């Protein structure tokens, strides 16, 4: 749930998972070439193309007797096999006095050896066969993966299964993981963008909320091997895991291999701790972090919706028009292209899976244009609630979404990963189809309705990190400002 701007070449983009996470349908068969247009000299503005006719393959699903869910999709192009696993867990479940435990557990499962192999020995074996293995735990899920040449698959699978079932958390590898976590804490104020994002989450969800809280030196120091073992023991079980496999294999053989690799791993009842729900703040607030830097980092937003909310489809198109689709969205057009105030500017409307998601508008601008940029951003958040979007905006947003839909299915591991995520988060198996069909139906009126209902410019939480004395106008013009003290 913590999304940070990612720089990709020319554009700074925040990837909202759902938008890249699409859906699809399309009909089978290897694509007839463009029929509508074959001339390349015409006016690109008026070229029209037939819809793409493509039915992506679906992965096969199977439940083993130990409760493990499997997805398979064969792909014989390259002699590689990729396995990805999702485990029902997350750092939202770690105890409040051990923040950081989930992440460290995942990391040391990977590095800290098993009952039969030392960690160093596993690393050596994997590197020798150029196998990539990772294990990690984030907010709301655990993940593991194996990417390996076909000829070495059996050896790789045996090691991964061993790490998942019988990790021993060698003391030295725990020390290294804790060292790394502590150094990360020391360094987390080195970049203004990280400060702005983190402080925004803390104000949005509350500093103690599992979706925003951060480890401290104290919580990391308190983590010991017994904690890792207990966390692992609580959540890692075959019936709490989904595995997806793509690549160069035969499904029947693969089922047998997986049954063997995880043989004897008992089912177990997993009880998830209750996570306190987030509380909505009923008014906005402005926060500043003062740093003598030449560019101000701005975040503003408020709580959003859950993925299951049927208004999500209209909201995703609304947000594309406001601040996310391509270069023609309103924030980009005005703040960047027209006024030249920012390289990175945009908005995200991210639905939550288990907890409510958020609306976020972000930007970074030169110090003496800070107020101008912030007020322009607010103006557009207000503006999209005040009048219908244009036909042109709606058409561009919908066509962009529908025509790029196919890229959600451009690789087998993408297809399988998506099916796994739907099952993991209890979304309908045809959710992606619904997504596409619903987006196609979105109207201007619908966008206005959801913008009014779910955007709250009067309740924005605004965080600005910068050199306030040199701003074009003080933030206090917008309301009462609270200074945040930053501690490592």
């Amino acid at each position, binding site marked *: 749930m913590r999304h940070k701007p990612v720089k990709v070449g020319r554009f700074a983009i925040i990837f909202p998972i759902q938008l890249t996470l699409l859906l699809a349908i399309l009909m089978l068969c290897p694509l007839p070439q463009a029929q509508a247009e074959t001339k390349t*000299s015409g006016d690109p503005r008026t070229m029209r*193309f037939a819809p793409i006719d493509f039915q992506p393959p679906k992965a096969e699903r199977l439940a083993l007797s130990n409760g493990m869910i499997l997805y398979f999709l064969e792909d014989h192009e*390259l002699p590689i096999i990729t396995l990805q696993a999702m485990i029902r867990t997350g750092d939202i479940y770690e105890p409040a006095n051990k923040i950081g435990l989930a992440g460290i557990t995942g990391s040391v499962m990977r590095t800290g050896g098993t009952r039969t192999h030392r960690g160093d020995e596993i690393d050596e074996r994997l590197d020798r*066969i150029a196998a990539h293995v990772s294990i990690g735990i984030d907010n709301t899920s655990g993940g593991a993966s194996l990417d390996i*040449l076909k000829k070495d698959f059996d050896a790789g699978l045996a090691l991964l299964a061993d790490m998942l079932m019988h990790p021993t958390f060698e003391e030295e590898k725990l020390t290294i993981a804790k060292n790394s976590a502590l150094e990360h804490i020391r360094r987390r104020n080195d970049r203004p963008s990280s400060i702005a994002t983190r402080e925004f989450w803390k104000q949005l969800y509350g500093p103690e909320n599992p979706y925003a809280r951060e480890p401290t030196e104290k919580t990391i120091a308190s983590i010991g091997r017994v904690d890792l073992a207990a966390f692992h023991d609580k959540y890692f079980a075959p019936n709490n895991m989904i595995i997806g496999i793509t690549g160069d294999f035969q499904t029947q053989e693969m089922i047998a291999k997986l049954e063997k690799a995880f043989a004897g791993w008992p089912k177990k009842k997993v009880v998830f701790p209750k996570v306190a729900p987030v509380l909505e703040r009923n008014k906005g607030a402005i926060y500043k972090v003062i740093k003598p830097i*030449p560019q101000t980092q701005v975040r503003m937003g408020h709580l959003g919706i859950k993925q299951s909310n049927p208004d999500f489809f209209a909201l995703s198109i609304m947000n594309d028009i406001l601040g996310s689709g391509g270069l023609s969205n309103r924030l980009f057009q005005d703040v960047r*292209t027209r006024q030249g105030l920012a390289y990175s500017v945009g908005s995200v409307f991210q639905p939550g899976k288990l907890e409510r998601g958020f609306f976020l508008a972000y930007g970074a601008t030169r110090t003496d244009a800070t107020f101008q940029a912030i007020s322009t951003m607010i103006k557009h958040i207000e503006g999209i609630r005040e009048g219908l979007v244009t036909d042109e905006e709606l058409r*561009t947003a919908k066509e962009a979404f*529908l025509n790029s839909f196919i*890229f959600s299915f451009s690789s087998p591991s993408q297809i399988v990963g998506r099916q796994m995520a739907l099952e993991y988060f209890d979304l309908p198996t045809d959710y992606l189809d619904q997504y596409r069909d619903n987006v196609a139906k979105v109207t201007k009126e619908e966008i206005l309705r959801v913008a009014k209902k779910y955007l709250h410019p009067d309740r924005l939480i605004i965080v600005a990190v910068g050199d306030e004395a040199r701003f074009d106008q003080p933030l206090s013009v917008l309301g009462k400002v609270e200074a945040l003290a930053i501690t490592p």
Partner: protein
Amino acid sequence: MKKWILAVALLAWIPLPVSAQTLADRVVSHTLSNGLRVLMVERHQVPTISFRIIYKVGAANEVNGMTGVAHLYEHMAFKGTQTIGTKDYPAEKKLIEQIEQTYTALRAEEGKGIMADSKALARLATQFEALQKEAQNYVIPNELSEIYDRNGASGFNASTGNDVTTYMVSFPANRLPLWIAIEADRMAKPVLREFYKERDVVLEERRRSVETNPGGKLYEDFLFTAFAAHPYGFPILGWPSDVGSLSATETESFFKTYYGPSNTIIALVGDFKADKVIPLLEASFGKIPTTPPPPPVVTVEPPQRGERRVEVEDEANPQVLIGFHKANLHHPDDPVFDVIDALLSMGRTSRLYKKLVVELKIAVSVSTAGGSPGARFDNLFTLSATPRAPHTTKELEDALYAELERLKTEAPSQAELDKVITNIDASLVRSLRSNSGMAGQLAYFEAVAGDWRYVLRNRDAIAKVTGADVMRVAKKTFIKKNRTVATLSPVENGMGQMEDER
């Protein structure tokens, strides 16, 4: 269940030398009549195509006073053409010319410094703003990108490096004619509209990635220290004063010099028929007039006369970057550096990770790179590391130098060398999995090495590297006199940060 692959002959880039032939067989290369190189691989599993256009130009082609121009042009390439992005090009063109005249006069007056006529300055500045506002009336902002978006473009972006500038996008396969029409148009007749606003955007990009980013500052200072003469010392984003003084006319002239057909590589990977595509490319891109070959980069970095060190003070935690000068990618020893790179930092069993992170516990991360900041010209082998408090960059340096000494005195085992080639083969296969990855690899090596097959030849050369080669190259390269060291030192409360007064 349906099989992902239907007919398609096995691509099988099996990590064995034979695979080279398999890949070579599938790449169709063609040179258009004006010298533009095209590389194509058909892949019919999904009805999409990934496109790359690489121009053999980057920050290494810049000169003092105009640093950042390659990157600024890359931004301008998204502004449209004489038909896209405008409501009335002839009228707009007149205004753009007036803007340029005014800017030239304004810059000349500003250049007089304290002798400048303040009234003339104010008048020119007002006129400059007014003309830009007027020109804006003719602009359809971001129209090019909007057309691409509506047609389902994915990964539409560009990047500027020291060696090359890359434009990338993927489309549903039936949009091939659209891509050709737009790209041939912007290669032939781009219009640098909204130039001075985009220049401001680039300065924001610089503030974001350098001036408020400790790692960005360190890398910038590292490069200009290591390269006192060669343009590899220029920041890709340019010096702020240079970027802030560039005119649209100068930027367009840079385009005309370096974006000619013979300086360009196009790669297409995906669902199309190569024999059908070639005539379409010939009829569009092929009609762009040839231009004279761009001027060569003549500057050669003189050998260092002693170790060079630079310190960056910032309100941030320490880091260290170390570079040793080495030859470009055509040198026969280049594959030896690939092996050294892998021995030192590839994976958890690499020498530096095991020594600095696991055994000594003085670092939280360490990495190396075999060709910074580029490959076309003589470059650097670099090592970078992040210390774990309270350990210092000095301790990291000592530990890193000890490992480099070990390379000189002790040949790596055959097992270590085998591990290197196995991993390099696997990463080659992985890099070719996606259409865009494959298009990127083909176009990049064609551009920097003159032939995409370099990637296969280099793989074979790596396989032949011996322990004695490693020792010989290490002895020659990793010496104090040949090294540049940059350290990031913490200061309290930003006393080191008084910059960006533009």
